[in-house]
């Protein structure tokens, strides 16, 4: 009798294995570029702090292994590593540390990619579709360990200068950041 119960329990536990990440192979039609309104500073006049608006798309992308690995591929395809190295920085700032000049939330990073930033970061509006910007932003956050290790990419197709993203220790974002050498002098 006890062994029957044990078998039933084990079979029930095995059901957990059926849980599978949902991947949307056919994204919903476009026409809806997300309009995130995020503040870079926590201060604002008046009582409740800065007014922000987020589309909620972050939830769909942040812990999703498919989107994160697509982001990793796009990071190379769109030559992000041309300036940011493989996260360690170069002409552009490092992405695997905890310093964020323009905010470290996924919405901030989406804005940074879409609008560009002074001193070198190009604007990719109209060049990279909205979903791919979100994939890139989710992946950029996984570089500093800000993605669930069960979803973050576990391997690289080529040599990498740092451990796989899913072994990165989490470093919560700190606002501010180090000014890159390219920003010290006006260009």
């Amino acid at each position: 009798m006890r062994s029957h119960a044990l078998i039933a329990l084990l079979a029930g536990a095995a059901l957990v294995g059926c849980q599978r990440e949902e991947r949307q192979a056919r994204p919903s039609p476009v026409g809806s570029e997300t309009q995130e309104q995020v503040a870079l500073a926590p201060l604002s006049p008046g009582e409740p702090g800065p007014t922000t608006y987020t589309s909620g798309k972050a939830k769909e992308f942040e812990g999703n292994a498919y989107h994160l690995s697509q982001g990793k591929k796009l990071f190379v395809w769109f030559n992000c590593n041309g300036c940011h190295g493989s996260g360690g920085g170069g002409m552009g700032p490092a992405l695997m540390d905890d310093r964020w000049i323009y905010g470290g939330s996924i919405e901030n990073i989406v804005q940074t990619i879409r609008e560009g930033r002074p001193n070198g970061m190009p604007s990719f509006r109209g060049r990279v579709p909205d979903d791919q910007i979100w994939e890139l932003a989710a992946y950029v956050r996984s570089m500093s360990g800000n993605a669930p290790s069960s979803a973050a990419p576990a391997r690289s197709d080529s040599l990498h200068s740092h451990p796989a993203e899913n072994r990165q220790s989490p470093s919560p974002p700190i606002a501010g950041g180090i000014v890159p050498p390219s920003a010290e002098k006006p260009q």
Partner: protein
Amino acid sequence: MRTRVWSRHVLLLSSALLLTGCNLVQSPLNPVSPQARDLLWLFWIFSAVLAAIWLAVMLALLMSLRARRDVGTDPLAADPHRESRATMLVAGLAVATGLTVLVLTGLSFAGQRRLFGNETAAVTIRVLGHQWWWEFQYEDPDPSRRFNTANEIHVPVGQPVLIKLESTDVIHSFWVPSLMGKVDLIPGRQNILRFTAERAGIYRGQCAEFCGLQHAKMGMLVVVDEPEAFAQWRDAQVQPRLEPATDEARAGEQAFVAAPCSMCHQVRGTGAAGRNGPELTHVGSRRTLAAGTLPMSRGNLAAWIVDPHGIKPGVNMPLVKLDPGELNTISAYLEGLK
């Protein structure tokens, strides 16, 4: 009654399956190169020898099942005469099996010599496998004569072709059944394949190693041309894109370069210089679209741009935001890139 209907269905279905053998566009039974003919010859020899052995075994089994022998009083009594005959028979069959294996190995070795031959190639093509399309780079000692194309290669009749196989992501396999046996594309190494097409025509090829969601829709065409036609095609491919001739196509080019298209696709002669997706400089001259999935036409180009994931779910081509006017002019522009 029911079983009869059922068996008729099975018969119908299996004869319908046989019909697929008639498709000569992609069939190893329609060899047009010495390499494919060697393989077909090996296939028939092996099939005939193994079928004969199988029939003999089945016959012997049937005979032994039907044979009746008087066992006498003691069923375990051994007749020394029978025993020695049986031993001889088994030993003879073991030797025959060994000989068959040896002979087949020798035949296989001899039959594959031409596959791994070392003749100098008239045309060298570097093949890069991508999920889920083929990139073809025509090599030439003169750098200005090199060019890239995708999903469709042209080769001249009767001249040896050298194919260098590489992969950019996962393992694929290059297989044009009428021309050669399959060879894998393995990340991090280069495999070599040679063939000489003997008859002009169009032969279809297919990825033959499961490589992900759209493995089944990773096809290609090999167009075997007469040498003059091939030289003409090659000269045209080396050129940058044809100047758009109409206002519509000019608007299409502007829209194409400003849209996300240029992040991944290259059209030589314009600002679009992405290298992640198929080269589109002469896309209108190809016969198919999306790695052999759709026939080339303006309508299919538009359909593919509007809904790539409906046609090939999981494909890396993203859904891009275009207004109807842009879509219209871009498809006209691409169709005109002959």
